[in-house]
């Protein structure tokens, strides 16, 4: 079993439920291939750096999991078939240092979100202050 990370971008034209169903679909595929899902990082809707399939935005999701190396081809095949997924990237974490980073990233997912949320709140608060002034 190796550690892998898969990032994929779902089309922004779908509704929220459809996006969620796409994510669960990928998770189901992972489960079917005997992968052990460790963490999920929802990066949310982001602007793409360049247009992909005529879309300028995309919904980013990152899955961290452990799986057999031979199963990756099947997982990627499914991602490739799916027309609602415009980009994906799988990264393998094999060396000790990479593994350490993998654990760190998995651990920081919950934290990072909270921090960014508080930051956004602060930014929003500052904006309102600026507007009042």
């Amino acid at each position, binding site marked *: 079993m190796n550690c892998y990370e898969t*990032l994929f*971008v779902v089309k922004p034209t779908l509704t929220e439920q459809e996006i969620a169903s796409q994510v669960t679909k990928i998770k189901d595929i992972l489960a079917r291939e005997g992968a052990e899902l460790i963490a999920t990082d929802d*990066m*949310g*809707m*982001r*602007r*793409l*750096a*360049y247009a*992909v399939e005529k879309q*300028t935005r*995309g919904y*980013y999701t*990152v899955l961290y999991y452990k799986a057999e190396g031979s199963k990756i081809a099947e997982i990627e095949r499914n991602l490739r078939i799916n027309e609602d997924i415009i*980009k994906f*990237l799988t*990264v393998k974490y094999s060396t000790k*240092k*990479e593994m*350490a*980073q993998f654990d760190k*990233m998995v651990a920081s997912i919950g934290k990072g979100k909270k921090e960014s949320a508080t930051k956004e709140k602060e930014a929003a608060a500052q904006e309102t202050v600026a507007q009042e002034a």
Partner: protein
Amino acid sequence: MMRERKFKKRFCKYCESKVDYIDYKDVAGLKFSLSERYKIMPRRLTGNCKRHQELVTVAIKRARQTALIPYIVDRKNVVDAPFETSNR
């Protein structure tokens, strides 16, 4: 000559903070090694050591593949659709 002045003391930022792996999803962190036009900056300008420059390069290329940072910023991109990393 002007560009070199931007980085006065040349030391590897990543060695200083003992980084072992550079995450491609951390766009803000990668920006240090990118030019205004999102080209990878050479080592002689950023002061990165060889080992970390290689890690940075891989991370930047992955970020480009996933549309987190642009491959090129030409005039069309600058005028029509300026890319900002803070923009969600």
